[in-house]
């Protein structure tokens, strides 16, 4: 193991290298560019034996990724925001074709009100594409989740693409300590890629024909079940990873000081780290506050959330994107998941367009949830750090 001080973008690039990625189609976009630049350097320096394909757009990137993966090699790429949006059409070809492509999406707001800063409205818009989505909290998790993504995607029970989502700038351009695994360890954890559905001239097959109504529905249900069954594999991969590298992330969700908690926040991405600190403060004040960290948005942890919230009086749900007039996407999904659990659920939108989320914002969220836990009437959805009174 080697200790490094690197950004999450570089951590992800190291993960793709350690995974012995074979093809990297790419198109640069801030704040993702550091990932593909670093991979280009690895390839140039002979440290990674892969084909680097500069494409003319992200649409082509994903098309190339589909072709390469169907050709039987391990494919990695990275994108962000408008780039992900431009891939939208091609993204949908991947899960149904059952191609285990791994892609990092460095979360960045999707314009107008354009910016280069973090917001989750890019990846949240793709949550019905069939891609598995994991959101990470820090640079170490960015590296570890990418390694786990390959293992998960390529598992014969899964065979689905995985999108590793990390906060633009807050992770992508922040350096912190990252423990870099040894190549032999990674090779043990991640065996050589053996393709399942593969295009091979000596054994001709037709991939992606037009599918009439007689078959499409069964194929969609098959995909629905594949995403559902990936839950077990996520748990297994987490255990395997812990055995090899000594770090565990809890699978679909993780919890922090939740055992005897009366109220809690549910967060994803870097807000989780902030929430951990605020929970510690609240606990030291004698308050029974806890935290749920949402790791996977797909598969969505319906059962895990119901179990985790069983004894909670109220749960606040953090969103770094809005679903306009209905709170954020995580809030609506969590509320649906908990519809048979007596926990009160509130929505909390913050950090939009990359606005910094301060300890005060997080504290404010916890205060509202605490009130809700006492049965007080609170807003269903609150925007934190907003200038002017909410309507």
């Amino acid at each position, binding site marked *: 193991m080697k200790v490094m001080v690197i950004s999450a973008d570089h951590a992800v690039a190291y993960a793709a290298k350690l995974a012995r990625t074979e093809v990297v189609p790419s198109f640069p976009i801030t704040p993702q560019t550091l990932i593909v630049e670093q991979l280009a350097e690895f390839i140039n320096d002979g440290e990674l034996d892969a084909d680097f394909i500069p494409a003319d757009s992200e649409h082509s990137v994903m098309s190339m990724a589909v072709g390469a993966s169907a050709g039987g090699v391990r494919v990695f790429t990275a994108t962000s925001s408008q780039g992900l949006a431009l891939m939208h059409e091609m993204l949908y070809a991947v899960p149904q074709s059952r191609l285990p492509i791994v892609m990092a999406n460095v979360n960045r707001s999707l314009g107008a009100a354009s910016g280069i800063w973090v917001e989750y409205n890019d990846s949240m818009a793709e949550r019905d594409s069939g891609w598995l989505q994991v959101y990470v909290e820090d640079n170490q998790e960015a590296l570890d989740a990418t390694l786990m993504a390959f293992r998960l995607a390529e598992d014969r029970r899964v065979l689905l693409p995985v999108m590793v989502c990390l906060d633009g700038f807050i992770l992508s351009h922040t350096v912190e300590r990252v423990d870099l695994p040894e190549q032999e360890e990674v090779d043990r954890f991640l065996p050589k890629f053996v393709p*399942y*559905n593969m295009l091979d001239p000596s054994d*001709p*097959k*037709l991939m992606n*024909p*037009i599918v009439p109504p007689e078959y499409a529905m069964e*194929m969609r249900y*098959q995909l629905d*079940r594949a995403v559902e069954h990936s839950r077990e594999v996520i748990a297994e991969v987490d255990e395997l990873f812990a055995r090899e590298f000594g770090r565990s992330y809890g699978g679909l969700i993780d919890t922090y000081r939740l055992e005897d908690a009366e109220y809690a926040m549910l967060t994803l991405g870097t807000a989780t780290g902030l929430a951990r600190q605020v929970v510690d403060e609240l606990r030291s004040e004698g308050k029974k506050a806890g935290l749920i960290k949402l790791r996977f948005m797909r598969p969505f942890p319906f059962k895990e959330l119901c179990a985790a919230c069983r004894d909670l009086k109220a749960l606040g749900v953090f969103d770094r994107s809005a679903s306009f007039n209905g709170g954020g996407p995580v809030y609506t999904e969590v509320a649906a998941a908990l519809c048979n659990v007596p926990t009160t659920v509130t929505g909390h939108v913050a950090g939009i367009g990359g606005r910094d989320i301060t300890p005060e914002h997080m504290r404010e969220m916890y205060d509202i949830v605490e009130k809700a836990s006492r049965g007080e009437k609170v807003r269903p959805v609150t925007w934190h750090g907003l200038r002017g009174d909410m309507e």
Partner: protein
Amino acid sequence: MYEVRFHGRGGQGAVMAAQALAEAAVIEGRHAQAFPYFGAERRGAPVMAFARIDDRKISIKSQVYEPDLLVVLDESLLDIEPVARGLKKDGKAVINTRKLPTEIDLGVEVECATVPATSIAMEFLKAPIVNTAILGAVVRMCDLVSMESMQQAIANRFGEKFGETAAKANAAAAAAAHAQAAIGRCKGRRPLAQKKEWLPAWNEIPIGTTLDERIVDGVTVGPGGARQNLTGSWRVQTPRYDKEKCVRCQRCWFSCPEGCIKREEDEYVRWDLNYCKGCGICAQVCPVKAIDMIKGGSR
């Protein structure tokens, strides 16, 4: 509500027929709808269209499974498709054939009109587009709409699209069919034709969207099942190649939409008639008329 199902082959005008029938009913102040089976239609492939007529607004948009009236634009379909599936016991049928109703075995014994719509169409329209002719027989078979409304509907539909002369010719074809239709009862002896269908449960479909040739049924009839589904069987005319005339320009090879013309080593061409749908494009593009289209789907 009165429900109609049309069976034809791509290019015969089943959809137009359904639409004209619906329009005729609307002309008479009733409610009606018409729609095709939403498939990837290709010239010569079996197709379906549906129509509904009622005195009040029709809300249902599903396909027609138990028709009151069956309209068959191509007699050969009776041998390959379960055309009469679901036809009501007291339903009716209109069939394009030279035979009399008593000579037809539909698989269900019902009141039936037969009409030589193809020869009527050839006479009036100079093309085997049988939809308007068959509508004349439909009017004769059931008192669904008057001949006047039907001819008005035909004039509206065809006039708008193809001009007044075409509208007139089509209306005349309908009138001739109305006069020539033979009414009687068809036979219901034979079992309905069995269509080969591969309808696997979700967990029986191979993972992903790739069909392996080992999935025998799927490759035959499943998505993209062209390997054994010889689309050449839809052909009603066949290219004939005169090698003597051929100047090896490769235009036919380049233009065939089905990719079924092969280049030989010597640059002469060869046909894979298993997939030739008989569109005639090759004959059209050949600069020296080395290809002509002969009637029938023979090889």
